[in-house]
């Protein structure tokens, strides 16, 4: 755990967040490589407090609940023209870990925490998700390999082989941007892939996005190019999002329509060995 005094700045997908508090903030180690110079211009303010406020949840409109059969992860309410997030401790059922407020323009957070760990999971990923609504970006369940020329994203359901195919590309000399969670952002007309702070330490990385592969294990390497609405719907299925608001979904649909109109999208059945690297390279040559 790292203590960072009263304020610091971090950059995620080149969006600078200014995190500040009247008390010391403890930061999970994975955020440290994303710290940037204090002179960087912040676009999002994150004000942190220790101690939880009294909130009458009955008076708020429930918008969204992230939960499974066993526990609640977080709940979102409408509040003062923005949003109120209630995050639960994953180790102690029913215990609130943080209460956070986000304004309607997605650029000012107020985070109230039980302790000094203001960005404790899942607060960090929630901030990242709303950062993508603030800017022209999406958060994806995906891995990405950059061979120095091309960035290839691999997405698929759990167990489809995202980490496996990343490892194969890494062994072939590619840099792995991340093998689980990525931001795609459009900058100056081009799409780029960025890693995000994880629970482990990794440097901040960026790569151009040149192709997206929707992967699954298969007895042979076989790629099929997708286009149009089918490509949009298949890629969008792997976007991490809270889709309780029509404007959020419309923004995503617009982003993915744009992305899929300029980026080749393939369904890829693959054999988990090095043969998939040459197969992809050859397949891309043939268009």
């Amino acid at each position, binding site marked *: 755990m790292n203590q960072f005094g009263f304020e610091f700045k971090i950059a995620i997908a080149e969006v600078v967040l200014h995190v500040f508090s009247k008390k010391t903030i403890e930061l999970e180690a994975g955020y440290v490589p994303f710290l940037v110079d204090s002179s960087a211009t912040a676009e999002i303010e994150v004000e942190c407090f220790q101690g939880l406020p009294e909130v009458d949840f009955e008076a708020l409109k429930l918008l969204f609940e992230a939960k499974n059969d066993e526990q609640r992860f977080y709940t979102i309410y409408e509040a003062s023209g923005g949003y109120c997030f209630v995050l639960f401790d994953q180790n102690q059922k029913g215990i609130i870990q943080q209460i956070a407020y986000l304004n309607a323009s997605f650029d000012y957070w107020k985070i109230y925490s039980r302790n000094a760990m203001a960005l404790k999971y899942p607060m960090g990923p929630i901030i990242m998700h709303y950062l993508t609504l603030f800017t022209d970006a999406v958060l994806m369940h995906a891995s990405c390999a950059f061979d120095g020329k091309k960035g290839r994203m691999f997405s698929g359901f759990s167990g489809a082989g995202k980490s496996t195919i990343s490892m194969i590309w890494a062994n072939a000399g590619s840099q792995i941007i991340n093998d689980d969670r990525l931001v795609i952002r459009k900058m100056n007309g081009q799409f780029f892939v960025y890693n995000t702070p994880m629970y482990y330490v990794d440097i901040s990385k960026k790569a151009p996005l040149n192709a997206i592969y929707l992967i699954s294990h298969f007895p042979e390497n076989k790629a099929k190019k997708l286009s149009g609405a089918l490509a949009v719907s298949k890629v*969008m299925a792997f976007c991490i999002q809270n889709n309780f608001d029509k404007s959020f979904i419309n923004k995503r649909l617009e982003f993915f329509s744009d992305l899929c109109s300029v980026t080749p999208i393939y369904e890829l059945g693959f054999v988990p060995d090095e043969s998939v690297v040459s197969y992809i390279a050859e397949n891309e040559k043939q268009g």
Partner: protein
Amino acid sequence: MDIQTLSSIKSKFVARQVAEELVIVPLSGNVAQMNELFTLNETGKFIWENISVDKTTTQISALMTEEFDIDEQTAQQDVEIFLSQMDILNKYNK
């Protein structure tokens, strides 16, 4: 699914045109629903966009014969097939 039911749940989806087709995304608090988005081809898109509480299958079929080069019987069959395929959306009728 009948037209009135589909009309009543249409507001629970967000649709966007991509080329001549439509991507339909459920508006839901459940992130897992993102695995349930689907696409409609040009014919499906036309029917979806013309579904409303005050329309009958015959009226939509008639509109289809004006829009596409098909006879009324084919149009009627297309509408019925479309509506039966929309049965998968029954879970949103709550």
